[in-house]
């Protein structure tokens, strides 16, 4: 695994299926070969109507069709080129100057330019549903365009704007309505949108006018939706597909033992299992109870049993890829039943049954948490929720007690997490935790200049850990299996897949 292979560096990212010369696997030629269709199986049906935001349903194809202004190298967490070839933030942090790449055209043939950047940012701010990091533009005062230079002017320092710029889909203003409906996608990426057959597949074809010379190598891609994990693994093992995405840990073990395949675990640890507590529900409105619960939870057992020990145990919501990651914060709630019982004793009498809610995929984790709570004398009621019910709970912020789920925000800069991540955001978070102190600490981080940032992160993290209204349990990796003739694909810090350099031997 190597980051920044040749021109792949322009896209950012951890290259997979790549050795020193840009290839990997036995029997593979070191020289990339042109042609072929890459067939990918993913366990989730794509959602073309939700392509504005990064999400697991569109992780395989969004960046094949669309480019972003910049990207992030997950290993060094450095900004790298995208549609912008240069970027500069002023000393006071209030101005960001982007130099756009020349010679980029939309799939429709129209030239890409500064107007398109302005449209994409306007759309991000005003669209419904909104762009997931729309808050990052809340202090935007204006956009100046001069040739291929775009200057963003902010009223306050935009300290973490590059997260947003690397997630923001640069969409074509001429086909915006079709983009919203999900019926057409016109981007500048290496592949052109073909067909979407609900329940079946997406097909993409090579962008003959891609701005990166001689890329992409592949003639096309097909993303198939195979929702049953065993069927997905069988499709890989019978060589019907070239890649299988989002493998379950047990399935990973199955294919890992077979020398015919390469298995890649993303080093971003970009998915975090968290345990949130609705602080308006008795007894979770008491901080001592929330802390006791976190001391009782056996995070290591969850990691060992559910993720085959592949994840990283952490209470803090920062992944090892995050600039805020700290081993001490990760271990802040190491299991301590005596301390948990002591905290419960100081919290006063508890008569209520605590609801432990989760979706079906997290049911085993919910069982472990419920068992851990019974060890300190708390009575629980496990509720497995349907996806539609969870969506309503999200919208109404109405979880009945504890809620276990995954979030993919743990690789973001901390300030983006506390202003955008639904479980943790300062305003209207899922667990109804509101605090002036929380808002103050977040505000300090948002405006902290470089030297003050560490202290601001430290104060904020200590506060989040102390309040314990939403803490992580385990940070896990995305697992991908490929045939050995697949080379050159990559992923970015947000776990989105990149195929400009992918090829088949």
């Amino acid at each position, binding site marked *: 695994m190597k980051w920044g292979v040749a021109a792949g560096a322009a896209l950012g990212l951890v290259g997979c299926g790549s050795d020193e010369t840009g290839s990997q696997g036995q029997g593979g030629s070191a020289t990339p070969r042109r042609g072929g269709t890459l067939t990918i*199986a993913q366990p989730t*049906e794509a959602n073309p*109507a*939700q392509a504005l935001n990064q999400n697991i349903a569109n992780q395989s194809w969004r960046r094949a069709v669309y480019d972003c202004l910049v990207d992030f190298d997950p290993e060094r967490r450095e900004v790298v080129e995208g549609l912008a070839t240069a970027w500069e933030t002023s000393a006071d942090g209030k101005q960001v100057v982007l130099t756009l790449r020349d010679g980029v055209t939309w799939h429709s043939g129209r030239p890409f330019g500064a107007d398109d950047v302005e449209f994409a940012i306007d759309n991000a701010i005003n669209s*419904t*549903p*909104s762009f*997931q990091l729309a808050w990052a533009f809340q202090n935007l005062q204006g956009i100046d365009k001069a040739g291929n230079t775009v200057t963003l002017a902010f009223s306050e320092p935009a300290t973490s704007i590059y997260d947003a710029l690397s997630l923001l889909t640069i969409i074509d203003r001429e086909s915006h309505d079709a983009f919203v*409906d*999900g019926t057409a996608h016109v981007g500048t990426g290496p592949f052109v949108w073909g067909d979407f*057959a*609900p*329940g*079946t597949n997406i097909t993409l074809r090579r962008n003959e006018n891609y701005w990166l010379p001689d890329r992409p190598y592949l003639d096309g891609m097909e993303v*198939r*939706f*195979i*929702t*049953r994990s*065993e*069927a997905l693994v*069988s*499709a890989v*093992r*019978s*060589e*019907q597909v070239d890649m299988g995405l989002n493998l379950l840990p047990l399935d990973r073990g199955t294919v890992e033992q077979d020398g015919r395949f390469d298995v890649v675990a993303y080093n971003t640890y970009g998915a975090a299992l968290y345990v949130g507590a609705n602080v308006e529900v008795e007894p979770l409105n008491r901080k001592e109870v929330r802390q006791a619960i976190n001391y009782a939870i056996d995070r290591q057992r969850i990691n060992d049993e559910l993720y085959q020990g592949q994840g990283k145990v952490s209470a803090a919501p920062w992944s090892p890829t995050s600039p805020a990651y700290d081993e001490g914060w990760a271990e802040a709630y190491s299991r301590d039943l005596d301390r948990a019982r002591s905290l419960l004793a100081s919290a006063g009498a508890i008569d209520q049954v605590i609801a432990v809610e989760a979706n079906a995929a997290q049911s085993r984790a919910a069982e472990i948490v419920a068992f851990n709570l019974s060890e300190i004398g708390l009575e629980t009621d496990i509720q497995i929720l*349907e*996806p*539609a*019910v*969870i*969506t*309503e709970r*999200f*919208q*109404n912020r109405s979880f009945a007690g504890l809620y276990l789920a995954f979030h993919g925000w743990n690789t973001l800069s901390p300030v983006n997490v506390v202003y955008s991540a*639904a479980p943790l955001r300062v305003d209207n978070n899922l667990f109804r935790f509101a605090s002036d102190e929380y808002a103050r600490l977040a505000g300090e981080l948002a405006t902290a200049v470089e030297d003050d940032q560490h202290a601001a992160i430290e104060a904020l993290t200590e506060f989040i850990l102390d309040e314990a209204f939403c803490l992580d349990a385990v940070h896990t990796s995305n697992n991908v299996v490929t045939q050995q003739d697949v080379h050159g694909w990559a992923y970015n810090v947000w776990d989105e897949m990149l195929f400009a350099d992918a090829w088949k031997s």
Partner: protein
Amino acid sequence: MLRYTLSRLPTAVLTCLVASLGIFWLVQLLPGSPVAMVLGEQATPEAVAALEAEAGLDRPLVVQYFDWIGGLLTGDLGVSYVSRVPIGDLIGPAVGATLELALASLLLTILMGFALGITGVVARRRPAAVAYRLFSALGFGVPEYVVGVMLVFVFAVTLRVLPAGGRTPILEDPGAGFQQLLLPAIALSVHSAVVVGRFLETALNQQLDEEYLDTARAKGASRRRVLWRHALPNALPSVVTVIGLRIGHLLGGVVVIETIFAWPGLGTVLVNAVSARDYLLVQDLVLISVVVFIAVQVASDLAHAALDPRVRLEV
């Protein structure tokens, strides 16, 4: 025969109407709102309410029901709440896929069922009888889901002679289409074939014990002639009814089998629609299944009546 056919229609129509009411009512009981899924987790309650109004979900249930039924009767299946695609466009290709799988499974059910039933009668004390009993026991006891997974493991993963899933329309590419169709069709038909085989065996044995066949044997009819010319035609009516019932089972089975084999049929669409709370799509799909099932039952009753005139005379 026409009188018999007409006598069956009112019951069938009434059953469809009652089923439509039941389906509509049950779907309303499902927790969660379809527009909530459309707007995603970040949506505000105000945005949800606005979209519900736009989709007509804020109207009285009675109005929504008659709107739905009225649309169906005029061929308008509505528009999916989630994908915003006309439902006709959404399920059109899926109907073809499911029909292909169901017909192949039905054909296999009949062929295997008859082979098993006749084997059970003619090979009572031979090794073939032991094989028949074993196959019947396994086919009856092992769920379709397990049969499907085992077939994939053996033929796709281990031997790699057949694909593990996916679909190419058989009219588009007969070779590839047949290969992809074979495993799901076998998985779907094994259980039904065993049931049909058992019924046929029992019906044949009953016929073979009848006195009119003693007469035939006394007149010198060969064993083969007794079985094929006399016993089998008289055993068929009850078996046809069982086959009709098994079609209902096949329609239910495709939901599981299609997901195992990534077969893009109605079952896959239904599973996705249920998890996305796409109410209208779920209603349409379930009602279509009910109508097809009732139509098949009526057809099997008519076939029964055609084979056995006594049934017609009961009307």
